């Protein structure tokens, strides 16, 4: 599992992943915060429903796409966490529509 080696995490803020409360360092981006909290399954692919998570962490691969505050396709490695942020796994529902 991912963990932090910094003794001082700084200020923590609250975000929600799939309704679960997570307290994460304020200066993390969304992808880092989720990985640190033990989440590695960010979305499923549209074609084969494969589970995916961050790959490059620098905005190139677009594998860390996730639903943030109701918006799909958010590039989580490029977005800072903010207090009260509601994050959901990005999935395709049974009708095939997002």
């Amino acid at each position: 599992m991912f963990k932090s080696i910094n003794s001082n995490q700084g200020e923590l803020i609250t975000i929600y992943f799939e309704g679960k409360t997570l307290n994460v360092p304020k200066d993390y981006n969304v992808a880092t915060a989720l990985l640190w909290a033990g989440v590695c399954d960010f979305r499923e692919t549209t074609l084969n429903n494969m589970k995916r998570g961050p790959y490059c962490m620098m905005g190139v691969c677009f594998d860390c796409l996730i639903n943030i505050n109701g918006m799909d396709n958010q590039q989580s490695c490029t977005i800072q966490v903010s207090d009260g942020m509601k994050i959901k796994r990005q999935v395709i529902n049974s009708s095939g529509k997002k």
Partner: protein
Amino acid sequence: MNSAKYDIIIIGAGPAGISAAVLADQHKASVLVLDENCAPGGQIYRAIEKNQKSDNEWLGQSYQDGLPLIEDFRRSRVNYQHSAKVWHLSGAKAVHYSVNGKSHSAKGGQILVATGAQERPFPVLGWTLNGVMSAGAAQILLKESGVVYEDAVFVGTGPLLYLIVHQYISAGIPIKAIIDTTPRGNYLRALRHSFGVLKNTKNIFQGWRWKWEIIKSGTLYISNISDVRINGSDSVASVEYCQRSKWKNLNCKQVFLHQGVTPELNTSLSAGCDKSWDARQACWTIDVDQYGQSSVDGISVAGDASSIAGGVAAAQRGSIAALNMLYNLELISRGDRKVLSKPFKKKLSKEMAVRPFIDSLFKPHVRYRTPQDNETIVCRCEEVTLAQIKESIGVGCKGPSQLKSFTRCGMGPCQGRLCGLSVTEILAKELEIREEQAGYYNARPPIKPVTLAELASLDET
């Protein structure tokens, strides 16, 4: 449309972009720097200001060396826009970008593309599984947030791989194993270029020191392998490697892959810049003259965005490009351009002298650049396998653009960044043509995905 006007617009705040910006500012040019990250430094000096306050000495001297540059940049009058996503660069020197979902436009007398490098795709079986990330990602997590993974397996080749492994070991993070994919023959091929090494022994000694300390640390170090694949259903269960014709299994939950870096192409190509295939680096490079001027008038490309030479070289190439742009803007004379660029050229030639050695030593084997197994996914976004690409070629597909219509390969949100190089080499191999003939995707704006709302938010007059 309201466009802000600047003498020089620089895309990217890594060593090339920052060096260019600081120098241009000293010569009274108005400069706008647009950068995707939230702080300057690019990938090499990522989060350097944040780490300055901590005592993270395991990040190493080559990282700390970047600080004076960032301080100069902060002190300059340069207009710096962080968190800016550039989605359009036109040959007419207009730039469109968005910040927090709102679009802006700017026009420059001269444009510098200093968008740096990205990691080369590593298309092996299982590289799309959860728990597989690039080694660059591991380094970003470490530098920016101090986040690490214990008992991970690092697979690949290249200076950056040794650097991150060395940083992990120095920080006391246990590593399960390093699987070194450097082809054996490379050591011999590199020796032919050892003359260049004599001109810049510092770099090479640093590299050997990293490797020596990695081996000395007692971390399991596996080399001379002929193939590698990653197993698991949803997430990583193990890495398998083939050594002396025998497959061996290593259980693990996290794998970090790396096999070098390649230029960020989409920005330059979308503006119409010419490119060439570099056989030694096995990637496309953007054609530039000695001053970084591309084939498109008024657009220069500096640093790793044109061809891979590393951070120190990037800073020199950025400075040289800045002087040329200042000359084009008639802010300095031709003579000044020549005299002022001399010290940068001298430092650059020292950096370049060692490249043939490094490039030859760390050129990844073709079996890791083009997948061997038909079931390997080449295009991660659209989940296109090697088998599908071969099938398309079999029914007459002649190039990357056609391959898009046949398979959607390269049409996902990453816009071909993670499959383009593999596709060039697969086409070249299957059609028995040169990479130049096989070609690359046509990069078109928007060069980053944007929402309609973002497009519509452009200021209108």
